[in-house]
């Protein structure tokens, strides 16, 4: 199981063994790390699963599709490395992925 590190806004780090095939959002929810609401359940419809992907992953992950890009523009405090965690799929290649959570989702 590829390791995923989630860093809460307050700096608290969680290392999670993530199941291949799940989305980063599902992994964070399952691990009960606070900071992601995921209101739409991964339908790319709510932007309440916003996260920042740490280097070098921002460029290694598959590019966001236009719908995700548009959603992100409207998330709170978007940065160039912003992603919707529900659109990040855990694969053997995401081993070591690190994401940071924003201060607030809405």
């Amino acid at each position, binding site marked *: 199981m590829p390791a995923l590190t989630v860093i809460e806004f307050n700096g608290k780090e969680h290392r999670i063994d993530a199941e291949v095939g799940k989305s980063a959002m599902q992994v964070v929810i399952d*691990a009960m790390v606070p900071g992601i609401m995921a209101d739409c359940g991964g339908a790319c419809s709510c932007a309440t699963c916003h996260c920042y992907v740490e280097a070098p992953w921002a460029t290694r992950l598959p590019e966001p599709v236009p719908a995700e890009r548009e959603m992100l523009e409207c998330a709170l405090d978007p940065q160039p490395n912003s992603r919707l965690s529900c659109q990040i799929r855990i694969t053997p290649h995401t081993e070591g992925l690190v994401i940071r959570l924003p201060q607030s989702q809405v």
Partner: protein
Amino acid sequence: MSHHEVLLVVGAGHAGAELAIQAREHGWPGRIVLVGDEPALPYHRPPLSKGYLSGEATLDSVALKSRATYDKAGVELMLGRRVASIDRHAARVTFIDGQALHYATLALATGGRPRRLPAAAEGAEQADNFHYLRTLADVDRIRARLVHGSRLAIVGGGYIGLEVAAVATRMGLTVTVLEAADRVLARVTAPRVSSFYEQVHRQAGVDLRTGVQVDGFALDTARRLVTEVHCSDGERVRTDVVIAGIGLVPDTDLAAAAGLDVEDGILVDACSRTSDPAIFAAGDCTRYESPLYGRRIRLESVPNALEQARCAAATLCGKERRHDGVPWFWSDQYDLKMKMVGLSQGHDRLVLRGSIEERSFCAFYLQGSRVLAVDTVNRIPEFMLSKRLVAERLPVDPERLADDSVPLKNQIAA
């Protein structure tokens, strides 16, 4: 609070699951028991008429949370169990098998059930190919019949009916939609938007008929299968499968029998409290006091179920929280991502922005310069901003609103 204090949550859907987990996060010290009459782990309902129906989503991917999450949160799951009654005096619920459980605090998240079609009561409802669509079990039955080349008759042109029409058409079925009102989505959207959706479905090959009342069915000689749908205009639609999607009835039976205040929904305040201080309620089964609209409203949507559950969880842990969020809802049909914000009731003007022809537009429902509600189709930035427009009651200039050359963002800032 001692550890003997049980928080008992009845109904394991979006609201129940969220409420149980959040109550632990907010520090509920005692047992938390989540009871649901469906056998599956609590799951997302929206994919039932979308990705799960088409087979793109799996059982695993529709689960709300993994089993381990409930364990971790110390939430005891009692699935496949139905609560039969509440004894408020004794602070106890009884299951249909007679077993009883005491509670310190009770939360009702019983959701709703499909409105039954009167014309189906005389036998069609019992047929193997007649379906309502609310649960995973419903969809598993339906899926077995959605085969290429079959004929599907959908009664009701609301979201669920139209989403199913979109999926089934893509799967190669011949689809007929029968809607009693003179347009689809009549209860929720403006005529312009309805006619857009009608056109899209017809272009996709759906035989969409409005203003037709279904008044009967023909069954085969064994009375196992519906063969025809009979309409009040004399039309007979031959079919292999029927799905009725004509609305939802909130599940308030338990609450009403226990003497709680109920009026087309369990009545709750903005913090999800019922008329009994030991009992909370959240989700589709409730009608809540909305600070934003200044009246009681009943919503059938995931974001609402989640927010009410979060308010209930915080409040019952002593951290009072009011639900003052904006109602919103989404519906995916074909390539169209529709998102609706707010409630349009009482609007005096409709302003369109963008292009209906290019399948990318918004409809703003205005009352003076206040935006009551917005429907957006393939317009994500406007959707996100619309939530703010409605929530913060930001005044708008209707003429400029329609001007697609000026980003909405700039219009708000001004």
